[in-house]
């Protein structure tokens, strides 16, 4: 019987099923795409992304996004960007390859820093963006931002120091142990050198020859005597070389002991600082005041730039090697999805050109002509071959608010990546911030601010600069919570008299080891005033601290210093003594050798024997 391979009657139901699937897709594609876009963007950016509506236009290969809100990951009550409508024109050929290539992006109603109706949810989980967020938060903790200490002098307590808290004591104990080890090592070294038998035998030979007349030895006896002298001289020479090597080692050991003593001195300096911190003396060093006033606010600015730069490093890697990424979330295990970039093909994501031009009219503060462009933002920069360029600007001639200029270049074409961003804001209302440690809020008012950020080679080189300049700064003292003390009132008086503010914060080094420096026009003014008022008192307190620390550590440090000096002296003396003994017997042997060789052929001077 011939078996029929195809079930032709099932073609109809199958087509029906496909039509139903198509209908379901048509009905649910937009809500599913909206939810997926929100979910994926939130996961990707590490901050809540909301969409009011998503419309698909399959015939035009276009997508309309309405009511887009991207929350600021660092200030959850605000949006980073809000846009009324975004139209994306996609490349259909790329879509067939499951790639998103946005040929054109047009945007309407874009606003920055708007308040959210509901604060955004912090993004949790083990995704890349939350990890970056956490690592950036961790990064900020490595900066040792001093807290402005303005404890009144009359509250300085009697200094109560526990010797166990002092590093010097621990360091001294450790140095004493190490000194003892060095001394033992030196003793053992001298024993291993074993110079004495060589010296004794050489001296015995020299004494014996001194009593002998070479003329009576005969030719054979003289030859034997010369040979034994030469042999002994060789032994003496070997002993001298061993002694020289030992001397070098001894010098190293002695040098280490010297370093140990220096570490004791450093520990003492640390203990002075520690004891000083217990007194909570007022700060009047200008750099410390600058860091205390503006350190935290500067780090907050830099960390935001670093966050976006780190995300760019992840999502825009250089090169064309296969790239693994976590697979899609589903009931089954996600696994890994590996991307295989191919030359002359579309990258997985590319925003070719985004143009945003719009004007806000009327007399509102936000009026002006806005223009922004984004080009070459891609997941595979090596395929696109050009750096991604982002720029945004706003001009409002005749307005009190002058201009906003933002530009960024992300160059990830090769492994020598370079991300740079510059933002310049002029004549804008600068955000106010609290001064840590003081009941004081700074409102810079209208002014200018700039932030430049550059990161090379995936964070190996970092350079950033943040500035604020304002001529109409106001200082708001919040004295409702607590009454400021005399010193705080003094600082408040000093800063209240300043109408202008000029702050420059600079970041250098690398991501792993950043260096922060801050200077402002406030530093010197506050420092000078504080010094004039409390300088003498503070100096007296510092002297007290030194005396207290010295009294606790001196009786432990001095014996160790003496012990180290004794070991150093003993080692030097012993080496010198051994050297002298060897030199002495060598000289004696050479004299005898000369005498013996002169007797072989009297009147003929023999050439010197070089050993």
């Amino acid at each position, binding site marked *: 019987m011939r*078996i*029929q*391979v*195809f*079930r032709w009657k*099932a*073609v109809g*139901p*199958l087509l029906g*099923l496909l039509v139903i699937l198509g209908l379901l897709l048509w009905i649910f594609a937009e809500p599913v795409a909206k939810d997926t876009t929100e979910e994926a963007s939130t996961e990707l950016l590490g901050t809540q992304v909301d969409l009011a509506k998503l419309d698909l236009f399959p015939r035009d290969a276009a997508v309309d996004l309405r009511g887009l809100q991207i929350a600021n990951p660092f200030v959850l009550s605000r949006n980073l960007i809000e846009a009324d409508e975004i139209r994306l024109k996609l490349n259909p*050929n790329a879509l*067939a*390859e*499951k*790639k998103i290539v946005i040929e054109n992006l047009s945007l309407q109603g874009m606003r920055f820093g708007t308040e959210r109706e509901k604060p955004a949810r912090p993004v949790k989980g083990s995704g890349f963006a939350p990890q970056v967020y956490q690592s950036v938060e961790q990064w900020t903790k490595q900066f040792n931002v001093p807290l402005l200490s303005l404890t009144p002098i009359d509250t300085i307590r009697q200094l109560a120091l526990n010797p166990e808290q002092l590093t010097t004591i621990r360091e001294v104990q450790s140095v004493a142990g190490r000194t003892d080890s060095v001394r033992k090592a030196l003793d053992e070294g001298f024993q291993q050198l074993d110079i004495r038998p060589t010296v004794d035998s050489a001296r015995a030979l020299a004494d014996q020859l001194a009593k002998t007349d070479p003329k009576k030895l005969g030719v054979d006896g003289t030859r034997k005597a010369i040979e034994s002298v030469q042999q002994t001289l060789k032994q003496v020479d070997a002993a001298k070389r061993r002694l020289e090597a030992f001397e070098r080692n001894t010098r190293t050991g002695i040098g280490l002991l010297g370093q140990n003593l220096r570490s004791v001195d450093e520990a003492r300096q640390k203990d002075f600082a520690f004891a000083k911190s217990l007194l909570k003396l007022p700060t009047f060093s200008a750099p410390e005041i600058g860091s205390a006033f503006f350190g935290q606010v500067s780090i907050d600015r830099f960390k935001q730039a670093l966050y976006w730069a780190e995300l760019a490093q992840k999502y825009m890697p250089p090169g064309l090697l*296969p790239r693994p990424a976590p*697979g*899609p979330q*589903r*009931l*089954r*295990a*996600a*696994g*890994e*999805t*590996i*991307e*295989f*970039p*191919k030359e002359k*093909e*579309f990258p997985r994501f590319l925003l070719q050109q985004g143009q945003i031009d719009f004007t806000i009219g009327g007399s509102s503060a936000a009026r002006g002509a806005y223009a922004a462009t984004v080009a070459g933002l891609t997941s595979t920069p090596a395929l696109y071959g050009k750096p991604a360029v982002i720029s945004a600007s706003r001009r409002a001639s005749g307005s009190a608010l002058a201009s906003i200029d933002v530009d960024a270049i992300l160059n990830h074409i090769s492994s020598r990546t370079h991300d740079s961003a510059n933002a310049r804001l002029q004549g804008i209302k600068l955000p106010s911030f609290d001064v840590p440690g003081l009941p004081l809020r700074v409102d810079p008012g209208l002014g200018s601010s700039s932030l430049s950020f550059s990161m090379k080679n995936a964070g190996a080189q970092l350079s950033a600069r943040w500035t604020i300049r304002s001529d109409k700064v106001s200082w708001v003292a919040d004295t409702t919570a607590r009454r400021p003390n005399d010193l705080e009132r003094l600082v408040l008086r000093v800063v209240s008299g300043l109408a202008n503010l000029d702050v420059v914060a600079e970041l250098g080094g690398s991501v792993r080891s950043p260096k922060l420096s801050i200077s402002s026009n406030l530093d010197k003014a506050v420092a000078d005033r504080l010094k004039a008022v409390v300088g003498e008192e503070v100096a007296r307190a510092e002297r007290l601290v030194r005396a207290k620390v010295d009294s606790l550590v001196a009786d432990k440090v001095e014996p160790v210093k003496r012990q180290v000096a004794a070991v150093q002296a003993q080692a030097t003396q012993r080496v010198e003594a051994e050297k002298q003994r060897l030199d002495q017997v060598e000289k004696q042997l050479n004299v005898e050798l000369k005498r013996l060789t002169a007797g072989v052929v009297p009147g003929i001077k023999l050439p010197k024997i070089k050993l």
Partner: protein
Amino acid sequence: MIALLKLIQSIIKTLHSAGTPGQVAAGMALGAALGLTPLVNLHNLVIFSFLVLLNVSFGGGMLGWMLFVPIGFLLDPLFDRIGLSLLTAPSLRPLWTDWTNTPILPYTNFNNTIVLGSFVAWLVLAVPIFFAARYGVAKYRATVGERVRQSRFYKAVTASQAYNIYKMFRP
């Protein structure tokens, strides 16, 4: 519980269908692909179309699907390793590069370790599944099949409305 009852119903119906043991086994081998690999992928649409269009037991396919879903979940770590080793093999890189850069083919998601690993595992297991199922069905029909057919339980199962729809696709 309902899933278990459905499974029993499916097993009973399939084992007593008019299809030959070979047709039931072929259906199960195809249905195993739907169970072993993550469902929402292009290759499963092709497999499902084969199940419908080829003269194999559709019930066998559904049975294979149901039986191999839990096995698929259990073997995911193994599929991940198989998929990863295939996707990271230097000699296969040109193949995957072309595959993922050719229209339509990327929708198979074969660049995902679980999808590729499970699909390859199914390809390897399809033939043993077919022969094992054919032997099992033939043995069942020759031994206890007739007694089950006479039972009230079987009559209750086959009398259900769903069975009428199912009959439409029986081989």
